[in-house]
Structure formats: structure tokens, C-alpha cells
């Protein structure tokens, strides 16, 4: 079986991983600036605001309700607390994504060098790890993101809510994790069947 497509996918994902790591480093620098330097005109902290005035937005015969928006808040001067909370907002999700991508790249690398390409116990193991990374990482990052948003909003906005709903990414992450676990189980059971067939004389 040709493994060229695996090699190509590995190269594409490796480039994506490298760019993601660079982006994370840039975000960390931005975070450091917010915490210890202060940037009146630079990077801001995105926060959700609710009940935004919407007078005049609706066309005739329609009513606009429950308007929410995302605003970018820039603390004036250095703010270590804001920097730390902002880090909690984005870093867990980013780390989850990077770990997931790294696991996929590693799985592809191993699959390319193996006899049976993707259909192996190694791939099943990698998929299982990927599944748990996505599930645990998505849940943890959603909880931390929500908690950090509550604290940041109370610090930086005049009005805040006791709970900020996590984004839809958490559902996507958990579903993707469950899919990875499912595929891992399919591969594992398939290998057991294959082993039995091969050991039949």
C-alpha cells in the first residue's frame, strides 16, 4: 500500500504544528506585555458583553433581542492579574490543540514506517491518547476559560455576569475526542480479528 499520502499529510501537519507553536510563542509574548509592560494600543483581551443597546438595528416588522458582542479590552499599564487570567483563557485550549496536532503528526510518522501503515496497535494507541487529550483538554480549557472570563470581566468591565458560557469549541473537541476513541477501538478490535485470521491454519 502506498504511504505517499501519509507522508504528504505528515508534512502539511508538521508545517501547521510549527506555525501553531510560533503563534503560541507570539501570544505568550503578547500576554507577557499585558502582564508586565502594558500596552495601551497593542494586544487586547477579548471579552463578551451582553445586553448591548440595539436601538435602530432592526428593520421594520422585526425586533432585535438579546444582543451580545465581543469587545477587546486593553488594561492601561501593566496588569499581572489580567495577564495571568488572560493566559488561563487561551493557553489550555491552545496547549490541547498543540498536543492533539503533535499526537497526529507522531501517529502519521510511525504509521509511515510500519509494515501495516495505519492499521496497527501503535495507531490505536495514538488515537486513544488523542481522544483523551481532546476530551480532557476541551473540558478543562472550557472551565478555565469561563472562570477566567468571569474574573476578567469583573476587573475590566463595569458590568459582568457570574457565568460566561463556554464557546461551541468545547462540544466540538469532546465530540472529536469521542470519535478518536471510537476509531481507536475499531482499529484495536480489527487487529484482534486480523490476528485470529492470520493464526488460522
Amino acid at each position, binding site marked *: 500500500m502506498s504511504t505517499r499520502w501519509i507522508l504528504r499529510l505528515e508534512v502539511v501537519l508538521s508545517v501547521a504544528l510549527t506555525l501553531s507553536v510560533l503563534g503560541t510563542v507570539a501570544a505568550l509574548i503578547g500576554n507577557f506585555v499585558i502582564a508586565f509592560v502594558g500596552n495601551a494600543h497593542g494586544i487586547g483581551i477579548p471579552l463578551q458583553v451582553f445586553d448591548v443597546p440595539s436601538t435602530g438595528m432592526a428593520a421594520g416588522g422585526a425586533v432585535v433581542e438579546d444582543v451580545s458582542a465581543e469587545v477587546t479590552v486593553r488594561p492601561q499599564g501593566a496588569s499581572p492579574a489580567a495577564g495571568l487570567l488572560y493566559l488561563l483563557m487561551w493557553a489550555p485550549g491552545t496547549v490541547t490543540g498543540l498536543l492533539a496536532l503533535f499526537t497526529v503528526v507522531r501517529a502519521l510518522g510511525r504509521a509511515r514506517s510500519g509494515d501495516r501503515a495505519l492499521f496497527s496497535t501503535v495507531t490505536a494507541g495514538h488515537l486513544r491518547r488523542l481522544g483523551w487529550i481532546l476530551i480532557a483538554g476541551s473540558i478543562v480549557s472550557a472551565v478555565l476559560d469561563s472562570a477566567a472570563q468571569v474574573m476578567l470581566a469583573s476587573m475590566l468591565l463595569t458590568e459582568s455576569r457570574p457565568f460566561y458560557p463556554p464557546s461551541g469549541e468545547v462540544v466540538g473537541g469532546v465530540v472529536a475526542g469521542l470519535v478518536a476513541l471510537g476509531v481507536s477501538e475499531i482499529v484495536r478490535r480489527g487487529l484482534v480479528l486480523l*490476528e*485470529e485470521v492470520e*493464526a*488460522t*491454519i
Partner: protein
Amino acid sequence: MAEPVIRVRLDELLKERGMTLTELSHRVEITVVNLSILKNGHAKAVRFSTLARLCEALGCQPGDLLTYE
């Protein structure tokens, strides 16, 4: 506790008939490697067709070839 196993009495039957594994391999058209796997109890399953060919070559019944321990 050791799990009960099905043992293939290929060694005994070959000895009784003065036949070698290679000779049996030629008669039943199964590789020596696979016959060794069968003989050493490493096979997970045996096809009826394989069993029939072995019985024909060794002049025995399936019950003579397999024992439950």
C-alpha cells in the same frame, strides 16, 4: 489456574507413522512453518479443510489429532 487448551497431537501421530513434518507438509500442501505453528500449539484456529487434509494424510480421525487438556 491454567486455562484448558486444545492440543494438536501432530508429533505423536507423525512418530507413529514414521513421517517427517516436511513430508507431511508436501502431502497436505501446508508450509512447514504453519505445521510447526499447529504442532507447537500456537495456532488460534484450524480450518475444516486443513483438518480433513491432515486426517487423510495421516489416516486418522479428527479426534485422534486433537485432545482437550
